[in-house]
Structure formats: C-alpha cells, structure tokens
C-alpha cells in the first residue's frame, strides 16, 4: 500500500469532522437556536454555554453547528447542479468538437463566466426574494461552466485514442461512448474539481449570507453570524472570530483534500505503479 499524501489525510479529517458536526446538528444541538432569551445574552463561555451566547442569548456552539449544516447543504446542492448540468454539456461539446453545438455550449459558458456571481445572485434575489434556495441556484449556475470546461478539456484528448475508434467500429454512438469510455476516465479530474468547487461554494454561501441574500433568519448561517457580530467586534470579538474561523478551517480542509486527491489520482503517478 502506497502512503497517502499528507495533505489528503489532513484535508479528509477536517472535512469529515465538519460533515459529522453538520449531521449531528440535524438531530441534536446543545440548545435550541430559535429561542431568544435576552437575559442570557452575551454570556462568556461556561458549562451551560460552551462557547458563550450572542446578543440575543442564543448558544454560539449550536449556531455554529447548524451553520455548518447550512453551508454544506448549500454548497453540496450547488456543486450537484454544476456537475449534473455541466458535465453532460462538456461531454456533449467534446463529442461534437468543432460543431455548432460545441460553439453554442462553450460560448454560453463564456457568457455565464462573464457575469460576477454576486451580481447574478442580487438579480435573482431582487426578483424572487432572498432565500437559501436562491443562493443555491445562484452558486449552482456558476458551477455549470466550470464543470463543462473541465469535462470538455479532459474528454478532448481521449477522443483521439484508439480505444474510442475501436468503440466506434463496434457501432457505439457518441453518447454511449461518452458515458462508457470517457466519463470513467475523467472522473479523477471531476472529483478534484468538485472538492475545490465545494470549498468555493462554502465561501460564496458565506458571502451571500453576509450581505443578507442567503439563508434567512432564524436559520443560522456562518456568513450572517459574521454580519451580526460586526457591530460588536471590539466589545465581543469572539462572536466574529468563531464563525470566521469555522469558514477558514472548513475551506482550508476542502482545499487540502482537493490538492491531496489531485496528487493521489494523478494518472502519471498511477501509471508508474501500474
């Protein structure tokens, strides 16, 4: 057994820890986060409140746990949208390289890339109102061209290989070849990209919540916790530091995981082992 890259192990542990916290928060948190109790506001850490409470007397630890749940759910679905739509589009573009379809798909991608995601998110919110769903949509739309490009770029060199020609002489159509031959061989690229988009999704969700376009109260979210703590940053710095730290560590973990996977799945390394 080959030794796994250190980055991969550290990243996987951090990511798994956050995932576990988010899952636990589905069924249990130390305190309810919807209840406001002004008498308990701005408590320092204690046995009852491990990390203290905020200006409305809500337990910070519980808020962070549910915030992890919000962040992960939003990023996961957004990446899912990107993969679900982007990968088929990219494969279709590669399968019909140079055709009108290829042009339409890739120029459409360029068009989406040309808009800053925040602007689109504001547009969506202005039209449909702020919500976690709309944040997911806005982030998801921007994942589509990323995955379309990665899939197309990975697929193009494969299309020139002899086993693709052999599959064509076996009478297989382009769609079928894309699914049977191309997709499994670009899976490592997609997995690495998914990890990186996932961390970007977490950042984007935090940014949207921060400006009030993401998850709405009372659902806790790291970005909104930051925004609410802003005015108290000199009196109660922990209120801002804790959600900030959560974002940083989570994103760092996912990036390490992505880098580690890239090394572990590198076809050149694998070929040497083969």
């Amino acid at each position: 057994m080959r030794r796994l890259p250190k980055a991969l192990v550290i990243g996987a542990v951090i990511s798994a820890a956050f995932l576990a916290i988010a899952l636990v928060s589905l069924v249990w948190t130390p305190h309810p986060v919807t209840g406001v109790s002004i008498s308990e506001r701005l408590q320092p850490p204690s046995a009852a409140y491990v990390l203290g409470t905020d200006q409305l007397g809500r337990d910070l630890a519980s808020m962070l746990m549910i915030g992890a749940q919000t962040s992960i759910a939003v990023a996961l679905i957004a990446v899912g949208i990107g993969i679900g739509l982007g990968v088929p589009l990219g494969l279709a573009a590669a399968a019909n390289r140079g055709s009108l379809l290829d042009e339409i798909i890739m120029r459409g991608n360029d068009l989406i890339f040309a808009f800053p995601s925040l602007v689109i998110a504001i547009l969506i919110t202005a039209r449909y109102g702020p919500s976690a769903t709309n944040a997911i949509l806005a982030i998801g739309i921007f994942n589509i061209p990323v995955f379309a490009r990665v899939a197309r770029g990975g697929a193009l060199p494969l299309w020139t290989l002899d086993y693709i020609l052999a599959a064509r002489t076996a009478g297989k159509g382009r769609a079928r070849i894309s699914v049977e031959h191309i997709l499994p061989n670009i899976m490592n690229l997609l997995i690495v990209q998914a990890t990186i988009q996932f961390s970007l999704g977490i950042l984007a969700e935090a940014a949207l919540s921060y400006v009030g376009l993401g998850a709405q109260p009372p659902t806790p979210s790291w970005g909104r916790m930051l925004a609410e703590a802003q005015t108290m940053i000199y009196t109660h710095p922990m209120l801002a530091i804790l959600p900030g730290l959560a974002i940083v560590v989570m994103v760092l973990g996912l990036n390490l995981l992505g880098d580690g996977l890239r090394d572990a799945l590198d076809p050149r390394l694998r070929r040497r082992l083969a």
Partner: protein
Amino acid sequence: MIAIERLTVDIHGAPILNEVSLRIAQGEVFGLVGESGSGKSMTALALMGLLPDGATAGGAVRLDGANLLEKSEAGWCAMRGNDIAMIFQEPMTALNPVQTIGAQVAETLTIHGTQDRRVALKIARDRLDRVGLSHVGLDAYPHELSGGQRQRVCIAAAIALHPRLLIADEPTTALDVTTQAQILDLLRDLVAEENMGLLLITHDLAVVSGMADRIAVMRKGEIVETGPTAQVLTERRHAYTRALLAASAHAPDRAAASRPEVLLEVEKVERTYPGRREGFRRGPPVQAVDGVSFTLSEGESLGLVGESGCGKSTLTRAILGLDPVQAGDIRLFGQSIVPHMPRALRAGIQVVFQDPYGSFNPRWRVERLVAEPFHLLDTPPTGSDRRDRVAEALSAVHLSPDDMEKYPHEFSGGQRQRIAIARALITRPRIIVLDEAVSALDVSVRARILDLLAELQGEFGLSYLFVSHDLTVVRAITDRVIVMQAGRFVETGDTRSVFDAPQHDYTQALLRAAPRLDLAS
C-alpha cells in the same frame, strides 16, 4: 576514446544493467541493438549522466581515462553537449515549440561559454547549413518544419560544439523510410567529417547493418554478443542474435487461398478536408484521398503502403465507416456504405490498431474489452454464453481464458495486440483491417503476431487489409500490394512482382530507401 567498463545499474534495487562493457573510438559508428527493455537506452542515459532518480551505477564510464561516474552534477553539465551530445527518437517533442530553431541551436553554444549572441547565431547558421537546412531561416519555429527537418535541427544542436561522441537513440524510428535514409546518410557523413564517435541505438538490425562498424547485441541488461558488424551478423555465435535475425526477416507460412468472391469494393473514393482557417476565410480544401479504386476478395491479404500523410489512414477510416467520403462509393459485401454504414455490416469488418497501449480503456477488464463489439449484434450473447465466446476468442489468439479477469496494464505489448485481435475476431468478421498493427512491436514479438495472423486467416478464411509503412512486413504477409502517394495509388500488383520489379519511380525510391538486411553468409 570513450569506454564503458562493467557498468551495472540498479533502480530501487531492481537490476537494469549487468556488467555492460563497450568502447567507442573516434570516427567509429557503434551500433547498440536490442528489443524494448533490453537496457540500451539506459546505457545511453548512463553515458550522459542522466540516470533516473533512485538509480545507482557501478563500474566506470571513462572518457580519456577519467571516470565520469565520479563527476558532480556541475561536472556533468560542463560535459553534456560539449564532449558528449545526444539526439532522441521523437523530433516532434524534442524541440521547444515556442522558441525559434536558431535560438535552440545557439543555446548549446551560449550555455558552454560563447558570450556573444551574434557569434552563437552565426555558428548556429553554419551548423544548420551543414545538416542540410540552408533554405530554412534561423527564425523558423519547429511547427513549420517536417519531422525529418526537425531531426536535422536536433542534430545541428547536438553537433554545435563538435562533440567527440554523439549518441543517437532510435533517431529514425519515428520517420518515413525515405527520410530515414537521408538522416542516416547525414549522420554517416558527419562522423567521417567531424571524426566523432557515434553510438547508434536501435531495434532495427537492418539500420545498423548498413551503418555501424561494430555492434553489440543487448538482452535483459547484458551484452550477449559484440564485434565487427559483418562478423556478428554472419557468424551469429549467440542464439539470441540468431533468433533476432530470424525474426527480422520472418515470413509466416501462408496458404494462398484467394477465392473469387469480392468482399470490398472501393470505387473512385475522394476524401477532402476543409482548408485551414485564415482569419474569417478558409484556405483551399485539402484532397487527402483522390479518386482511388480497389477490391478485396475473400481470403486475400492486401497491403496498402505509403509514407505518413499519403492518405492511407484517411482511406482506412472511410472504409471502416468512421469518416464520410465526398465522392465515390464503397461497397461492403455488395452493399453501399456511403453515406452511412448499415449497422448490420459493421460486424463483418473489424480493425486492429497500431498502439497496443492506447487501444484499450484502461479501466475495463479484458472480458468487457473483448466483448465490446457484441454491441453490433441484434441479440448479443449474455451470461455464460458471452464468457464462452470471449474465452473462445482468447484461445484463438493463444491467450488463456483466465486472462478475462485481468486489466490491460497487466499485459505486455505483444499480448495486448493479441487481445486487440481477439476483440476483432469476436463478431466473426470476414475482413480485418490491420492499421500498422505490428509496427510498434519488437521484432521477435512481431514475428509471432504475423504467424498468428497467418494461422487465423487459414482457420477462418479472413481477408486482411494490411495498412503499413513497413515494407518488410507487407512483403511477408500480403498477396497483393497498393502503393499510395499523395492521395493516389501509384502502383498496384502482386506483392512479389511489385517488390522485385517496381514500375513507378516512387515505388523504386521507397524500396531503395528501405534499409536492407544483407545476410550474405
């Protein structure tokens, strides 16, 4: 001048070279011959101090008495390009695509102390003139040159500082025969003129037999036989030398059982590509195949010979129904496949490609790979039926049915080519197209694959369309041959009469350029 003494190389403990000794004198061409994995390239890398990470070398590499293996990396850097220079197999990747060729030749000079860039460029010009590129400017980029011209640029850079030893690792393997002949001539002239030593590494006995003064035959990291070329090739003291020579000239026994039924008719086929885009306009279209006609009968082996870019691959793809044709007709078993090949016909024509490494999806097991063409059948066999058919095909190519469970990387190049043939046989086709199917294989492996092809032809009454640039192989396995040049057929006829008495100038030039293994013994 340069001597390798009992050179032993291990990589991470695995033995690569075992007590290799040879010496090369100035003005001498030394041929190092062997099949893949014999250690011939590793010997060259040891001479250049370019052994891969994890390699440990024992013994000595002596240039004028000093042991080079004791040198530091800085010491090596001063030597490389200055005393010992090297050229590689693949001229397409040996040059930096974003630098002019003048800059790349001059680079060798500036690294080794020519201060003035203008002087370096002037010398570069002179060396490029010497290798026959006087009509090419210093400001040309590699992509503007052909493969042969690029190899000349590599040679110019290698000889820029008049090295005493030039190492050429398969310098002509990637080139066409006529280009190969020119490059070999150039190398031979340079050796005489510059009085340098040339270590010519190749798998091709015919190439060394015409070039080298002395040769060494390598196998599994050892030199099995060495001596003057003529002596080694005629006396053949070692069994491996004999086997290698026999394999090089191997012609399988074939029963010429051509029956009159015509399976494939190609009639005035034209294939054009759209011209290159220049801004918003396109250049004139490129005529890759220009009105060619031929037929292939049952049980016949037809050779299609030509140099790269002559249109043979394009024509092959059209016959396989992979590309459309612009004019003419292709009839398979009496039915036209233009513009679209009917699905039912595909099962009757299968193909084996050149590259045993690129021919398989690395993530599939052999069973699934071989069974892929079943997709063509209306009722593909399933379950144990399917496994039986795959096992049968594997047995036909002399592989074990147990190999079904393995992945392609577990097989050698020759075995993979057998798997590719099994895949082509699975639908019981009547025609198999062999697109350079043995070109990437070592001679001894190639001989066995040719035998297998002959055997399968006798057994199943197959027709072969044998597409190749390798004249020796085409001669060994075909009944009729077509010579193709620039999209047209210039000569067609019986293989033997075409090779013995070529009529067309181009065929004559091809045959003249092909290195021949003269075994006057």
